[in-house]
């Protein structure tokens, strides 16, 4: 349980165009243990998605290194599954075919056919196998996206605000599903979110990032046992703690309004 699966060492990522230079990430260091659930939270523009894309291999840092089990990450790999905010599903494929896409892309579909039905079971979409993405709800679509990423048995599952566009009931439902899946195959998950409750509910550690330049301001360990109670005293005190930090950490404190 204690071995390090992901190591991020001194990452810098700068976006430049003709008249603008944006320091998206500045000296990021983080190591993630196998089986951990990490959430990265922060206000928009703090570079959390950039960091996740670097881990996936979809982007490259200007300096610093990302190592997965000691090997440098240079390009996307099925061992690191990625769930996109929305719109990541292939519209022209059915639920079943979307889930099987990873197997087909790796040309291992024939010997793993049975896994498709297993994953459909797992995400509870029986009866929707032949539906197309536009025919199912947003929550179902994100469950399909998660199953599609998991079918390749990734070591790391990277989740980029997968519940961002969902209503709070569907959101809670998928959060529980994620925990269940994590228990099931002891996957390591890294979640980018701007929902503090979601981060506390799911994570072993919460990475708090601040913008301009994007950097890690604090890493918090959440030691509450699962299942966590969203309204519990400890939960709420952690929540208050984080929200206060955010207020303090904000580069531009929000103005106070009085009536």
């Amino acid at each position, binding site marked *: 349980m204690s071995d390090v699966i992901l190591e991020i060492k001194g990452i810098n990522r700068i976006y430049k165009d003709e008249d603008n230079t944006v320091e998206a990430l500045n000296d990021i260091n983080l190591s993630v243990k196998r089986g951990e659930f990490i959430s990265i939270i922060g206000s928009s523009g703090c570079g959390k998605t950039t960091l996740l894309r670097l881990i996936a291999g979809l982007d490259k840092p200007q300096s610093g290194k990302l190592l997965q089990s000691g090997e440098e990450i240079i390009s*996307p790999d099925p061992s690191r599954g990625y769930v*996109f905010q929305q719109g990541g599903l292939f519209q022209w494929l059915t639920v079943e075919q979307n889930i099987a896409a990873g197997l087909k892309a790796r040309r291992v579909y024939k010997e793993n056919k049975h896994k498709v039905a297993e994953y459909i079971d797992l995400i509870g979409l029986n009866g929707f196998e032949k539906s197309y993405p*536009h025919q199912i709800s947003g929550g179902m679509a994100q469950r399909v996206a998660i199953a599609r990423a998991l079918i390749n048995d990734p070591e790391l599952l990277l989740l980029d605000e997968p519940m961002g566009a969902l209503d709070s009931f569907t959101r809670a439902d998928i959060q529980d599903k994620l925990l269940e899946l994590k228990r099931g195959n002891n996957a390591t998950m890294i979640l980018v979110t701007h929902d503090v409750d979601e981060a506390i509910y799911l994570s072993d550690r919460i990475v708090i990032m601040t913008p301009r330049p994007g950097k890690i301001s604090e890493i918090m360990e959440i030691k509450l046992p699962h299942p966590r109670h969203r309204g519990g005293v400890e939960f709420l005190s952690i929540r208050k703690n984080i929200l206060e930090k955010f207020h303090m950490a904000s580069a531009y404190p929000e103005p106070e309004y009085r009536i």
Partner: protein
Amino acid sequence: MRISYKEPSPNKGRLNINFIAVILFTIAGFAAAILANIFIPQISAGVKIKDYTFGGITLNINSAYRLVLAALIALYTAIGIFSAFDKDRRKKYKKRAQFRFAAGIALALWDLFGTKLQLLPQPFFPGPAGIIEAFLSESGFVIQNTLYSLRLFAVGFIFGVAFGVGTGIIIGWFPKAYYWLTPVLNIAGVVPAVAWMPFALTLFPTPFTAAVFLIVICVWFPVASLAASGVQSTPKAQFEAARTLGGKTSYLVFHVAIPHAMPQIFTGINTANAFAFTTLVMAEMMGQPGGLGYYINASKVWSAYYKVFAAIIVMAVMFSLITKGIGLIESRVLRWQRGLVK
């Protein structure tokens, strides 16, 4: 006051009286056209009624015309009976009843003014029975020319679509190809294909291959430019998703970019289809040894306008069937879009 409750009519059901009336109404127009043809005497002397014999059956233009009307009656009755057992089909059939009735009446009037009275300027506007004479007097020749057109269209269209989809994907995928080929496509593409006719006729060994060339280039332009834009408009997230799933370049092209471009490719094919009909007929009128366009030209020389009309009718039927066929392929390939785009 009593309120009576009426059973809602079920989706499936027996042939009910109302619907039988709808069927009768639909075919009444054509029946009227038959009766008009039988009972109205030939008043004008300008029409010579000749007998043609086909394997023991003797037909003249009037009896052939009545046969066609009878066939239409049989067809619409059959469709009516077939539609009677389904609510949606019944609705559709009922909606079209007025038009079909009117079509029959229009035929009757056309027959009256075109053939019986010959009040329309002759020989430019023959009656419906007069047009049928083309099929009686030289059916073999009409069929031969129809097949020539069909073959020319099929070869040109299939090659054009294949070529267009191929180049479109290359242009959409490789930025270099886009840079160098798009201006060529945009400049060459807007020129009507028939303008290349003189070159085509000298460059290609036979008139047939020359016409195929013209159809290929007129199909190529819309298909290629729309296929290219379909590939280019694929969201980055879709490629990234495929890459994180382990997809390599070939997967990105064949399983992401091309399926994503399919709706646009079909838009291109439908546009190309209309271009191809025009190019086909023009090419045939300008220098082909056969085809419906050639037939029109050859008939015009003899002022046989009824044959021109016959060729036009064959074209209308043939081109509608082709368009319908392409539509069927499209709805099959793009079945995932059903309910998504309306």
